[in-house]
């Protein structure tokens, strides 16, 4: 259990908050309400009576004493058990004759009750002092955890065998682990992004290479129907296309004989004649295939350039691979990111879960007294101490059942 306390000025405001919360929280917020030394359990009326009683003391500035008792989410507690703990706290603090309104909430995973207590005694008009209330509350909670078989919250009021230094050291270690877990999460995110980018680059390169290969196959097939030596013709065409792609394609269509000897057919009409019209007709198809090859090669080179640019952004080796190496380089990138990812995942699995650790840390930090918490500053880095402050604040919000709502 966790217990926290505070002083306030207005009974009415706190009673209203305990019943209604914020506008969207009113539904099913209150599980049950009880009172001590009051004629009614009606929170509004109780607040009015408490205000009237507090007015009998003209000196008190903050007559409202608020205690929030939170059980662990795993604790199975009924109303009787919660009332028992509340009564024990009230009795231990010497407030058994004071007016008390007990409001149990059912709006969180963890069962919790709020005690709205009038610091002004209803008969004597004397004001109860909060001095040393925190240790008293903690002692009662530890005793009741033992008595009711509830989850024990480690704290400085029971674990006296553990020295303060050990507690601080443990928290410092946990903070370091927590910081590392956050860093791993950040690194994992970056590596996953890098891996996705490498996969996209590889897919783009593979698609461009496949397109170039298919276009080349089609061109070779066409050239076999045009030239006696198609390999030589292909070499000549590619050489010409390297200088002026548009002119090479046009020449293939209009003057295919520039790239090699055309295939001919014998026409026996009394005298021997050769006919290359079929080859010239097919050369038009070959020219179209040639354009495809030129276009596919260009797209492949663009993909390689893009892959290079992408790699330059992510790597600092400054290497400038040949086109043929581009795919291999991107595959190597992909493999490298997968290895990094695997290492990060392994490290993450060896450490405790982030949320579990966060919760344990928040609770441990909340248990520290202000001087102990300040001493933590001496053994952790500035960033870790900032983190500790945030977690401690978070635990306070949870304990008060407000989760940044008050």
């Amino acid at each position, binding site marked *: 259990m966790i217990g926290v306390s505070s002083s306030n000025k207005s009974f009415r405001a706190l009673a209203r908050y305990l019943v209604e919360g914020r506008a969207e929280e009113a539904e099913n917020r209150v599980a049950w309400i009880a009172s001590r030394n009051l*004629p*009614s359990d009606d929170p509004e009326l109780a607040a009015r009576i408490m205000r009237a009683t507090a*007015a*009998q003391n*003209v000196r008190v500035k903050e007559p409202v004493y608020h205690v929030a008792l939170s059980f662990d989410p795993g604790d199975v507690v009924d109303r009787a058990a919660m009332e028992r703990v509340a009564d024990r706290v009230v009795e231990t603090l010497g407030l058994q004759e004071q007016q008390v309104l007990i409001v149990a909430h059912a709006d969180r995973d963890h069962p919790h009750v709020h005690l709205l207590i009038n610091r002004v005694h209803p008969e004597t008009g004397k004001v109860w002092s909060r001095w040393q209330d925190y240790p008293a509350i903690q002692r009662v909670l530890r005793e009741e955890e033992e008595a009711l078989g509830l989850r024990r919250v480690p704290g400085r009021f029971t674990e006296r065998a553990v020295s303060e230094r050990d507690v601080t050291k443990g928290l410092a270690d946990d903070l370091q682990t927590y910081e590392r877990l956050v860093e791993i999460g950040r690194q994992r995110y970056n590596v996953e992004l890098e891996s996705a980018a490498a996969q996209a680059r590889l897919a783009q390169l593979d698609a461009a290479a496949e397109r170039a290969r298919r276009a080349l196959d089609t061109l070779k097939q066409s050239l076999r129907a045009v030239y006696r030596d198609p390999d030589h013709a292909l070499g000549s065409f590619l050489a010409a296309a390297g200088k002026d792609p548009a002119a090479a394609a046009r020449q293939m269509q209009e003057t295919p004989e520039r790239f090699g000897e055309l295939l001919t057919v014998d026409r026996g009409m009394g005298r021997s004649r050769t006919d290359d019209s079929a080859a010239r007709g097919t050369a038009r198809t070959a020219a179209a295939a040639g354009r495809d090859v030129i276009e596919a090669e260009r797209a492949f080179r663009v993909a390689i350039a893009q892959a290079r640019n992408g790699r330059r952004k992510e790597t600092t080796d400054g290497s400038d691979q040949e086109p043929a190496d581009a795919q291999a380089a991107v595959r190597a990138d992909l493999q490298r990111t997968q290895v990094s990812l695997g290492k990060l995942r392994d490290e993450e699995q060896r450490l405790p879960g982030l949320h579990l650790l966060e919760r344990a840390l928040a609770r441990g930090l909340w248990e520290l007294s202000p001087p102990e918490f300040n001493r933590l500053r001496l053994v952790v880095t500035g960033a870790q101490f900032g983190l500790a402050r945030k977690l401690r604040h978070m635990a306070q919000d949870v304990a008060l059942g407000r989760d940044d709502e008050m």
Partner: protein
Amino acid sequence: MPVVNGERRSVAKLIRFTPSELERVLDQAQASGRPVACFIREASLGSRPRMKNGSAGDAIVHQLARLGTRLRVLARTATEQGLPNATDFDAALSDLLETIRQIE
């Protein structure tokens, strides 16, 4: 100790009252919502301490609440023991709470 115009209130003066005078002073101090010493000092130095808002109502509510608390205990005991007039206690308590609600 508060500092007023650069001076501390470090000097005390014993004043004698008749019992009835003291009772009136205490009543007026309470009605003004000030501690007795503060009330006497302010009144004797010429200011007129104002009445605290709702102090009369608060006093009545406080007294009724004291009665109501005792009545509630009686009502609960009567119900638990099955006394024949248990419901009368409940009714009386309800009336009393309604009265408190009507006091501003």
